[in-house]
C-alpha cells in the first residue's frame, strides 16, 4: 500500500481501490464487490441496514455485531481507519508538522511497516470475528479457512443462501427503549434505602447499551437482603448504581439523603466489600485496618479513638490473634473478614457485599453470614450477592431477583420477602429461582420476560412487595 498524497498525485480510482479492495488488481476489485454484496445480505439477515456493507470501518464493526464480537469489531474498525489514513496521507502530516526533510523513500518504508503491523493485528481480529460468525450461522469450523483465504465466498454463501440463517438478530436498542415505558416508583422512606432507577446506560463505540431498567424498591433499616441473578443480569452494576459510584438515571436516597447529590459526604455511609480481596498482601492486618480507619473515619476522631476502634473491629471479626501477620499469610476466611472489617470500621449505614462467601467452605460461609446478620441487627441495611444462597437463606429478610430480558437488559423480576419470592416463582429453593430467569442458552428456563412482566403487573396493583 503506498501513500497516495505523499506521492504527489491523487487518483480517485487508486484511492477507491486502496480503501475498498486493498489493490488495483481486477481480481481484488471483483472479490471485493462480491464480499460487499454478501455482507449486505448478511447484515439484512441480522436485522441491520444492508448499506453498512459499503462503508469501510463501519462495516467491520457491524459485522462484529452480527458475530456477537463487538469489542473485536471496535478494534478492527480503528485499525482499518488508521490503515486508510496511513495509506492516504502517509507520513506527510508528520513531515509538515516537524519541518523535517523526510524523504519519500523513508516515508514509504514507514508506511509499509505500519501497514504490515496493522495487517497482522487485523488478521487476528478477523479470525475472532469469523469465529463468532461460525457460531452464529452454526456452520463447521473449516469455513474459517475459506474466510481467511477469500472472505467473499462465505460472505456470498451466508448472505444469499436462505439455508444459512443467524441464530439471533442484532437488537435495535433504541427501538426497544422506546417500546418499553418506565414503570412505577417506590415510596421514599425517611429511614432506609429508596431506589428509583429508570435506567443505566453506557455508550460503546457510538452504540448506546441499556444495562439496567426500571428498578424500584424501598429497603427498611435493619434488613439483610439477598441479591440474586444469573451472570450478566447486572447485579454488580446495580450495586454500583445504588452506592453512587457509577451513577444511573435514578434517585437513590439513604435515610432521606440523596446519594447522588451528596456523594462526597455519603460515600462514607456506604461500605462496599468487593468480591475479591482487594487488599495489599504485604501489609500487616493492623496497619491495613489503621489506614482504613484514617481514610474512612472523620478527621476529628483522635488517634487514641481510632486505635480503639481498630482494636474493637479486630475483636468483632476475630482478627486480634493475627493482627501482626501479613495479609497475604491469612487464610481465605480471615481475608474475607479483614476485607469486611475494613468497610465496617466506619460504621456505615448501608453495607454491600459482592459474593463474600466465594472460596469459603460451608461452615466458614455460614459463620460469616451469621456475623453479617448481627451487623444488620444493629440497624444497618446489608445487601449481599451470593451464588449459594440456600445454605444461609434463613438469615435473610428479603430477596431481589434481577434478570436479563430479551433485549439483554437487566430488569427487576422480584423484590420482597423470602416467602413471597417462593410463592411468586413457584419454587422453594433460591437456586431454582435463578435458573428460572436465566436464558435458555445459559442452561436456564428462559422465563425472565415472563417474570419481569408479572412483577410489573403486580406492582401496578400494589401486589407482590
Amino acid at each position, binding site marked *: 500500500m503506498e501513500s497516495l498524497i505523499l506521492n504527489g498525485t491523487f487518483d480517485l480510482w487508486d484511492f477507491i481501490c486502496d480503501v475498498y479492495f486493498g489493490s488495483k488488481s481486477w481480481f481484488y476489485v471483483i472479490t471485493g464487490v462480491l464480499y460487499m454484496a454478501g455482507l449486505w445480505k448478511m447484515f439484512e439477515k441480522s436485522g441491520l441496514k444492508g448499506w453498512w456493507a459499503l462503508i469501510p470501518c463501519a462495516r467491520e464493526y457491524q459485522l462484529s455485531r452480527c458475530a456477537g464480537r463487538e469489542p473485536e469489531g471496535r478494534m478492527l474498525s480503528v485499525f482499518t481507519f488508521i490503515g486508510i489514513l496511513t495509506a492516504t496521507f502517509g507520513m506527510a502530516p508528520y513531515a509538515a508538522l516537524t519541518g523535517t526533510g523526510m524523504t519519500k523513500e*523513508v516515508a514509504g518504508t514507514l508506511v509499509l511497516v505500519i501497514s504490515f503491523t496493522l495487517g497482522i493485528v487485523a488478521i487476528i481480529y478477523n479470525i475472532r470475528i469469523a469465529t463468532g460468525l461460525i457460531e452464529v450461522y452454526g456452520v463447521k469450523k473449516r469455513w474459517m479457512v475459506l474466510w481467511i483465504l477469500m472472505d467473499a465466498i462465505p460472505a456470498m454463501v451466508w448472505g444469499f443462501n436462505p439455508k444459512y440463517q443467524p441464530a439471533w438478530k442484532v437488537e435495535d436498542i433504541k427501538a426497544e427503549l422506546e417500546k418499553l415505558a418506565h414503570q412505577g416508583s417506590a415510596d421514599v422512606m425517611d429511614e432506609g434505602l429508596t431506589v428509583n432507577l429508570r435506567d443505566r446506560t453506557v455508550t460503546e463505540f457510538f452504540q448506546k447499551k441499556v444495562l439496567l431498567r426500571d428498578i424500584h424498591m424501598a429497603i427498611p433499616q435493619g434488613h439483610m437482603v439477598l441479591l440474586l441473578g444469573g451472570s450478566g443480569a447486572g447485579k454488580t452494576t446495580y450495586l454500583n448504581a445504588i452506592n453512587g459510584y457509577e*451513577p444511573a438515571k435514578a434517585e437513590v436516597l439513604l435515610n432521606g439523603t440523596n446519594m447522588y447529590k451528596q456523594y462526597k459526604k455519603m*460515600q462514607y455511609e456506604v461500605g*462496599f466489600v468487593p468480591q475479591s480481596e482487594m487488599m*495489599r498482601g*504485604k501489609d500487616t492486618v493492623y496497619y491495613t485496618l489503621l489506614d482504613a480507619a484514617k*481514610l474512612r473515619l472523620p478527621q476529628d476522631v483522635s488517634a487514641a479513638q481510632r486505635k480503639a476502634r481498630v482494636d474493637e473491629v479486630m475483636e468483632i471479626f476475630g482478627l486480634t490473634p493475627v493482627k501482626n501477620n501479613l495479609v497475604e499469610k491469612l487464610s481465605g476466611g480471615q481475608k474475607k473478614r479483614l476485607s469486611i472489617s475494613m468497610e465496617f470500621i466506619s460504621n456505615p449505614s448501608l453495607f454491600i457485599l459482592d459474593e463474600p462467601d466465594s472460596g469459603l467452605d460451608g461452615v466458614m460461609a455460614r459463620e460469616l453470614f451469621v456475623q453479617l446478620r448481627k451487623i444488620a441487627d444493629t*440497624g444497618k441495611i446489608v445487601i449481599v450477592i451470593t451464588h449459594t444462597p440456600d445454605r444461609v437463606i434463613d438469615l435473610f429478610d428479603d430477596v431481589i431477583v434481577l434478570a436479563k430480558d430479551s433485549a439483554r437488559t437487566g430488569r427487576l423480576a422480584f423484590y420482597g420477602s423470602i416467602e413471597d419470592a417462593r410463592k411468586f416463582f413457584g419454587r422453594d429453593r433460591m437456586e431454582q429461582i435463578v435458573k428460572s430467569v436465566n436464558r435458555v442458552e445459559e442452561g436456564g428456563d428462559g422465563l425472565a420476560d415472563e417474570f419481569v412482566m408479572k412483577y410489573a403487573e403486580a406492582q401496578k396493583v400494589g401486589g407482590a412487595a
Partner: protein
Amino acid sequence: MSDKSIVKSRRRFRARHRGRGAQVWIYLGKLLRMFVYQNDWKVLPMAALIAGLVGMVIRKKMFLNMEGTIMGSFALVCVAIWNGCFNSIQVICRERDVIKREHRSGMHISSYIFSHMLYQFLLCLMQTGVTMYVTKLTGVRYPAEGLFTPWLIVDLGISMLLITYASDMLSLWVSTLAHTTTTAMTIMPFVLIFQLVFSGGMLTLPAWTEPLTHFTISNPGLKVIAAQADTNNRPFVTISNMVDKMKDNEVGGTVTVGQVLDLLADKDNPTVAEIRAMEIGKVFTVGEIREMLEKSETFQQLKAEHVLDDMDVGDIIDAILEEDALKPLREYSIPKLNITVGEAIALLQGVDGVKDVADTKITRQTTVGDVLDMVDAAGIMEKYKDVELGGVTTVGEAVDWLAGLDDVQARRDKSFTFKTTLGRLIDLVGEKNVRSFLEEKAAAASYKADYEMRWDNIVEYWLHLLAFILAFGLLSTITLEFIDKDKR
C-alpha cells in the same frame, strides 16, 4: 424481622474527612512499610550490581578520552533509565483493584500519586547514591571539581538522580495506563528501546527523527552527563589508535625528487604546514664543532688528503670569493651571525694571522691537515670556541633552502623507490607529534556545542529533566483519575 433490635445509625456524613495533604502521609507511610515487606529494598542491591558491571566496562575510558567519555556517559544514562523504569513499572497496575476500592472509600488519586512520587524519589536517591559509589569503587576516576559543587561526582549524582527519577515517573505513567502487570511489562521494552535509540548521542539519526529526540529522557540525560564530563576537551583517540594498529603495515612506491619537494612545499596542506612549522636544528659552539670534527673518522681521512695543485693560501681564499662554482658556498648564510660565508672570509682577510699566511705556498705534498695547520685552524677554533654557530630553524625553511639549490633542482626528475612501514614514516615526524596532532584535530572535528561544560547548558538540561518529572507525574494523576470512567 419481628423482634430484632434496630439501632439507628448516626448521621455522621457531615463530618470532615482527611483531605489530600493528610492522605499523602497515610500512603507514604504505607509505602515505606512496604519497602521492607514487599521487597522493594531489592532495587538497591540490584542497582549496585548493575553499576558494578557497567563500572568495570567504562572505568578505563571514562573521563580519559572523548569516545570513552561519551560511551561512559551513555552507559550511565542507561543505568539510570533502567533503574528508574523498573522501580515503578508495576506499582500502580499491580494494585489497580485496591486503588479502585480505596478510591470509592474516599481516597484522592492526586494524594495517592503524590505519595508514590515522594516514595519513588527516596528510592531513586538511594539508588543514585549506590550507583555513584559503586562505579567509583570499580575504578571510574571522577575528576575532582564540579561546576556546582566542589566534587564532580556530586554534580553527576544530581544529573543521575534526575534521569533516574524522570524515568521512574515515565514508568509510573505507563503503570497507570496498563491495567495488568503483563501489559506493563509488554510496553516496557518499547519504552526502553525508544529511549535508547532516540537519545541522539550514540546512533546517527536521520534528520526527520530529530524532533523525536525531544521526547526522550535519554537525550537531555546524555547531554548533561557528557557536558559535566567535559567531553569536548577530551582527546579523540580512535584514529591514532587505529594508526597505531597499522604501524606494521608496509607502504612504499616510486617517487621523484620533484614530487617529494612539491609535497613538502605545499603550505596549503594543513598536515604539511604542521610539519613545516616544526622546529629543528641545534646551536653549536665552535669548541663543540672542533670536538666533533676531531672525533670524526671522515674528517681525519680528509685531513690526510693531498691538495691537488701548487698554490698559496691566498689563491684558495680568492677562489672561494670569485669562482662561480663556489657561489652557493659563498652565499650560504651562516645562521645567527647573519653574514654569508663570502663575507666571513672577506672579514678574515683583514685578520693579522690570516694575512701572514696568505702567501704561504701549498705544494702537492701538502695535505688538508697541513692547510688547516697553516691557517692555525685549531688556534682560531680555540680562540672562538665559545662563539655559537647555527640556530633553530624550521623544517619548512630547511626544505625551501634545499629546494633552492641548483644541484637539487637539477635532480628533480630523478626517481627512487622506497619501501617502509607506516610506523617508520611516523617516526620520521615523531610519533608523539603525529598522535597529538591526530587527537587534537579529531577532537576538534567531533566538537559538540551540546557537550560544552557550561553552567547554563547543564541547568537547561536539568530543567528539561525536571519538566519530564512534573509532566509524567501530572499525566499519571490524570490517567488514574479515569480508573473508573463512570465515577463521579
